[in-house]
């Protein structure tokens, strides 16, 4: 060992270190959520090793988590744009109402599926119009449309559900609720695909760039020529489209459409977005974070049961884990961002 070799090593070590800190700073949010995920997983692994070391529990995660992950992903865009949507649970049911109407009248599943997506797209677009053109804050506007669409669903269906067994064997049932290779739920594939597409749109397309800018500083975005109105309306329309699709996936999984479809999805979906590190104030957030956080939220739901905690304790533990996870995520990503 001589002093020369030490000297030669030093610069490379510092550039490596600065590259590492730069990565930590850039991906602080994402790294934070991965740590939270590992933390929660270890918690359940210790609590119930037998369950969490076998495949069925993961198959169950992959089957139920997509129901709200499919909506948490586009909701991430809504919240990055500094807006909120509370109406998507009702839009799930509204889309399926359109599906049921067309299916009972024509018997054509493909046509019914298209009607479902169009209904969702329309409901989302309408949210955007109310927020942007009429100027109602999205919290209030979508609270209103949430009641409205649920009301429409109940009026049209008269509160009655409809069986969907006639769709069994069609590509629409197998395609969204089948089991790929008999193991992986098809909805999981759709969730991954949605995550990839939305990641691309958010990070590699002009529209996504505008979503970030609108949420970060709406006035400067407007001054720099970003079409704020169109960006926001598109974000709400996308949310409606995905909500209708998620409603379809849930209904195909259980082969029945209940007019109450969507109830119970609001908080899981919102929790996934916020746990994923998306800021309530807009301007920051990642698709990756929401994706991982959705599975953490899904795992908490299933994990509590699997760990043998039942009854009244479920909500206590659920709330506790959510609060601890969000805090842990916030602290970790802040530490990383300023390291």
């Amino acid at each position, binding site marked *: 060992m001589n002093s020369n070799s030490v000297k030669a090593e030093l610069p490379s070590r510092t550039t490596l270190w600065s590259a590492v800190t730069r990565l930590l700073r850039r991906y602080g949010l994402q790294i934070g959520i991965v740590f939270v995920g590992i933390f929660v997983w270890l918690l359940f692994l210790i609590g119930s090793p037998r369950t969490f070391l076998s495949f069925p529990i993961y198959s169950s995660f992959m089957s139920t988590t997509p129901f709200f992950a499919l909506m948490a992903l586009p909701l991430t865009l809504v919240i990055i744009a500094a807006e909120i949507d509370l109406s998507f649970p009702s839009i799930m049911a509204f889309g399926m109402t359109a599906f049921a109407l067309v299916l009972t009248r024509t018997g054509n599943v493909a046509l019914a599926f298209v009607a479902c997506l169009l209904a969702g797209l329309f409901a989302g677009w309408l949210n955007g119009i109310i927020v942007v053109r009429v100027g109602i804050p999205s919290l209030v506007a979508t609270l209103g449309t949430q009641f409205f669409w649920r009301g429409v669903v109940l009026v049209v269906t008269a509160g009655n559900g409809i069986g969907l067994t006639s769709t069994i064997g069609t590509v629409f049932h197998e395609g969204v609720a089948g089991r790929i290779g008999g193991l992986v739920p098809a909805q999981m594939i759709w969730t991954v695909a949605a995550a990839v597409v939305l990641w691309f749109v958010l990070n*590699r*397309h*002009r529209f*996504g*760039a505008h979503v*970030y800018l609108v949420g*970060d500083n709406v006035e*400067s975005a407007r*001054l720099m*020529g970003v079409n704020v109105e169109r960006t926001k309306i598109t974000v709400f329309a996308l949310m409606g489209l995905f909500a209708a699709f998620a409603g379809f996936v849930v209904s195909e999984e259980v082969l029945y459409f209940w007019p109450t479809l969507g109830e119970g999805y609001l908080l899981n979906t919102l929790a996934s977005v916020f746990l994923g590190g998306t800021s309530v104030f807009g301007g920051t957030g990642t698709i990756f974070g929401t994706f991982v956080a959705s599975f953490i939220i899904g795992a908490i739901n299933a994990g509590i049961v699997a760990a043998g905690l039942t009854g009244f304790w479920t909500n206590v533990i659920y709330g506790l884990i959510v609060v601890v996870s969000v805090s842990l995520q916030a602290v970790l990503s802040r530490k990383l961002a300023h390291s």
Partner: protein
Amino acid sequence: MDYFLQMRNISKTFGEVKALRNVNFEVGTNEIVGLLGDNGAGKSTLIKIIMGYHRPDPGGEIILKGKKVEDWSVEKARSYGIEAVYQERALADLQPLWRNIFMGREITNRFGVLDVKKMREETDRLMRTTMGFTSAAISADSLVRNMSGGERQGVAITRALYFQAEMIILDEPTMGLSLSETKKCLEFVEDIKKAGKCCIFIDHNIYHVYPVADRIVVIDRGMVAGQFYKNQVSLEELTARLYLVAQTGRLNSNGEAGAGEEPRGEL
């Protein structure tokens, strides 16, 4: 003189409030115009009209390079090379530098897919050349939130220059800047002049505007209270007159308007 921008008879009413009344305002093709006025005098409204952000009330005319332009808008203002540099509102704090430089003008292919690599490279190049950032702590991926006031101003100014502005509007560029940063900023204003372009320099600090401006326009209560060519009035004289405007709404003791400006109407 050749004019880049002429505004004729511009008024702007917000509900009951008349923010601007019959304002005539022009900027020469290679002129630095200092725009002075108290808070609420109508400076920002005038600038927002120039930027196409607000529409003037009917009856106003906007003339660019001698031609009257109808349906003035943000897009049109930009197509004529008018760029504004707002101190606080220009940048998106939570976004990296490269996204700020290309805000609203992202480099994309025809499907709207971003060329992130190219935007990062251009940002890196601009940082080293125009902005003069040499610190290793700042990269194209640095968040604007972590930058100093002077650095932020540099980013906004660089952005305007990069997109080949013909006229740059600086909205209180020296506010909150340290002495050395103010000096740097004023040097930039001189660079605009040297580059053969024009500039509107808005401030309420006469000591920052006077050294770099060719002409100073004073706005008070929504009207042009007067204008001065720097070679016609000394800093001391101008300061004294501005105090008078603040106290009486008039430019000098016998109620005359300033040089080259028509009388102020009802006041």
